[in-house]
């Protein structure tokens, strides 16, 4: 029995698309309360790994466990219910709903609001809705979108949409948050702000696994880093160790132009 | 008895295949489920009949003339109603729904136009081919053999068009990879307009042949449209070989089910088969998964 059991265990997972092994025998552990970065050159299989953990793709082989419980093969909505929330590359939100509406949708999805009590507008349902209203405000405040609460989500600036995407994930009250390229398309100032927010998320007790291209940001924000190349894990360690790792340097140099 | 049923099924299947070809071509190239397609079939039959009546030309001369007419009509309808929507249709569900709504609208208008112009009474159309052939105890009218021959000719012609001409290559490129085709500078609108023309011509041929076997009337487009749906799903939406095999298969199944199981419920069998295929193999027997 380990003293500090990992929150997420990924054991020898593989994913084959047609004849291509996008992810090959990758194992990793995410420890409670850490920020783990998953990096690698283009096509290394980072996002595929993400999709395997969050249930978007089915595994060809291997196993994923959350708190020791096997979650392989569960539908994404069940996995979300068990405490893994994710964001999407290029962010994914409900563009036609308001910012408030977006967060509200995620909170309603997770709420225990019975159909009939809600449909009839019973007192309990009204109380639940009221508490959801308060939570929306809290989350918007946390991601810094309070002043845009009533805007249509699709009309927000790109960086704000990314923040809203993170807000949506936080609304699921996850234990583990998967961030897919959270800093993509941000300028350095926005990146620094978002990185601060990732740390603040961790301070609220949420473990974070993030995939990222922006090396500087990853080095700054992560406690540990796992490096993938061509579907396989080639290194694991603290940012300092990774920076000094010869194989990592080679992998990145080899695909210099698309980094 | 069985041989006769198979032969009948083959004839029916040929017409079905022909009906489905034009429909599946449009889906393959433009991702349009064309609900007005059955009406093009019907208009094709009326065009052929009208040319025959007013010029006294025989069926086999009038048919190509009418095919050109329906091809033009098909292109005009595409340019007027569908082209403005297509860009949205590839990217959003909403766009896809809009395209279907428009073709449903066309279905209403074309059918009513035919009723207003030609009235509802069924009319005869004579191919001018008589006589029968007997092989063993299978009886086949020459007219039905001509139907099979025309279907075979059109299929060969279509394959030539798809695989031996530049526009055919462009068409296949678009069907396989739209973004790629746009990127290398193909004029997709032009190619899609061309597909609508070809599809209209095929519809005209199928409709005219149906007209000679049964009757020409404004309501004749409904059944072939439904058959085309079944066939393309059976064979894979957008797949040309799928439409041919699917057409023949449905023709055979319908005849056999009608003869040996229940005539009244023969259409029910094809629809149930369709649903089974869709659920087990959503991309159809010849289709590629999306």
């Amino acid at each position, binding site marked *: 029995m380990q003293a500090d059991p990992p929150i997420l265990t990924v054991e020898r997972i593989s994913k084959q698309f047609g004849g291509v092994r996008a992810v090959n025998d990758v194992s990793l552990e995410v420890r409670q309360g850490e920020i783990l970065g998953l990096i690698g050159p283009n096509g290394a299989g980072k996002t595929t790994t993400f999709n395997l953990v*969050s249930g978007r793709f089915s595994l060809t082989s291997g196993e994923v466990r959350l708190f020791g419980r096997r979650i392989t093969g569960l*539908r*994404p*909505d069940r996995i*979300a219910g068990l405490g893994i*929330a*994710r964001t*999407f590359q290029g962010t*994914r939100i*409900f563009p*036609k*709903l308001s910012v408030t509406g977006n967060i*509200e*949708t*995620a909170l*309603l*999805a997770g*709420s225990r609001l019975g*159909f009939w009590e809600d*449909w*009839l507008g019973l007192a309990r349902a009204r109380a639940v809705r009221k508490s959801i209203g308060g939570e929306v405000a809290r989350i918007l405040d946390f991601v810094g979108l309070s002043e845009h609460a009533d805007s249509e989500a699709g009309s927000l600036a790109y960086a704000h949409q990314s923040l809203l995407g993170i807000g949506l*994930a936080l609304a*699921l009250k996850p234990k583990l948050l998967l961030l897919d390229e959270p800093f993509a398309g941000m300028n350095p100032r926005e990146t620094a702000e978002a990185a601060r927010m990732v740390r603040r998320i961790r301070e609220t007790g949420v473990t974070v696994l993030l995939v990222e291209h922006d090396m500087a940001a990853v080095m700054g924000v992560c406690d540990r880093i796992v490096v993938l190349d061509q579907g396989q894990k080639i290194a694991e360690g603290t940012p300092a160790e990774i920076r000094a790792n010869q194989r990592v340097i080679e992998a990145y140099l080899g695909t210099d132009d698309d980094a | 008895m069985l041989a006769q049923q198979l032969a009948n099924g083959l004839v029916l299947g040929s017409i079905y295949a022909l009906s489905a070809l034009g429909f599946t071509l449009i889906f393959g190239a433009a*991702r349009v*489920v064309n609900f007005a397609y059955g009406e093009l079939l019907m208009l094709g039959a009326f065009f052929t009949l009208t040319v025959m009546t007013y010029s006294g030309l025989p069926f086999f001369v009038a048919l190509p003339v009418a095919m050109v007419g329906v091809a033009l009509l098909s292109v005009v309808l595409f340019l007027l*109603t569908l082209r*403005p*929507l297509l860009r949205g249709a590839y990217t959003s*569900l909403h766009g*896809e*729904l*809009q395209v*279907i*709504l*428009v073709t*449903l*609208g*066309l*279905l*209403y*208008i074309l*059918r*009513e136009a035919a*009723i*207003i112009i030609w009235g509802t009474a069924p009319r005869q159309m004579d191919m001018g081919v008589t006589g029968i052939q007997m092989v063993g105890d299978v009886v086949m009218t020459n007219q039905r053999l001509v139907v099979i021959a025309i279907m075979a000719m059109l299929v060969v012609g279509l394959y030539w068009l798809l695989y031996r001409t530049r526009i055919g290559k462009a068409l296949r490129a678009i069907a396989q990879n739209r973004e790629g085709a746009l990127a290398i500078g193909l004029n997709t609108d032009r190619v899609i307009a061309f597909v609508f023309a070809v599809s209209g011509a095929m519809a005209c041929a199928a409709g005219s042949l149906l007209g000679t076997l049964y009757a020409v009337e404004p309501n004749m487009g409904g059944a072939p449209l*439904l058959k085309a*749906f*079944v066939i393309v*799903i059976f064979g894979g*939406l957008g797949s040309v070989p799928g439409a041919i095999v699917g057409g023949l298969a449905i023709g055979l199944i319908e005849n056999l089910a009608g003869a040996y199981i229940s005539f*009244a*419920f023969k*259409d*029910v069998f094809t*629809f*149930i088969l*369709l*649903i089974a295929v*869709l659920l087990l193999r959503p991309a159809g027997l010849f289709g590629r998964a*999306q």
Partner: protein
Amino acid sequence: MRELAIAVLAAVMIAAPFMLGDYQTYLLTLTLIWAILALSMGLVLGFVGQINLGQAAFVAICAYTCAILRQRYGVDFWLAAPVALAAVVSIAALVGLLTLRLKGPFFILVMLAFAEITRLVIANWQDVTNGPLGLKGIMPPEPILGLSFDTKRSFYFLALVVLAVCLLALWRLIRSRTGRMLVAVREDELLSEFIGIPVMRNKVIGLCIGAFVAGLGGLLLGPFLTILAPSQFTLFASVDMIVMAVVGGVGTLVGPVLGAIFLVYVPEFLSFTSHYRPAMMGALLIIVTLVAPRGLLGLADVARGLLARGFGKPRRESGERGRAG
């Protein structure tokens, strides 16, 4: 303001049959039934995001089940109706579970196939459905709670109550958690799944609610027309519902009702022969889709916007703007 409008409308609708002749009452009842059917289609279009060409089959199943129970087994309307509704909702759930995983054109085509199967079964199951000739002489619902429905006027009120209750219930629904889940799934299935919404379940629920409302329309249709025949439930019946929902405005509750009013009364006022009606439906469908995708309600919004802007500007300019828009 809105409450006042609703109150006035309700008063007008209640007073209408007392001021109008039999034919006008008949026409108004027809409109109400179409409005219920259009509402059911509008729900599937707007909240499940699918074109359902099988909607007419749901109407047919419910209408026939109720009529057969009454005519062949002597069951009271008020007992047969819930049975018929339960039947249609179960069938919708089953069909939905099988078909809703299909995307775009595949769903549309398979539901069309379902509608055709239903129609063919009705047309060929002579012993039970009386085949293509249909069920004749369907009586008005039996009296209940001291109310009888054997006059045109009383049947009108029954239809009015059903529509009003539907509107109210659906209005609550789209504001409920379920309503929001439906919207989320319609907007983005993938994202919905990842924020914990069971996508299939919600789509099936949406389809079942649509089928329930369609069934209510079907229950009224039999006694209203006094005859049910398979020819009433072709593809065109579903398309008529679609046209009404689209012309009125998809994604709203008032839209389909407006659409039904529009499509019953416009041909009536223009005294079209029955020939031109389908052509008009077709033309409307195309024009609305191409030019005003938000339907009559969208046009009303545009007009309101123009008016609001027009008041602040010199007259001539607002006139030009109006023409340009």
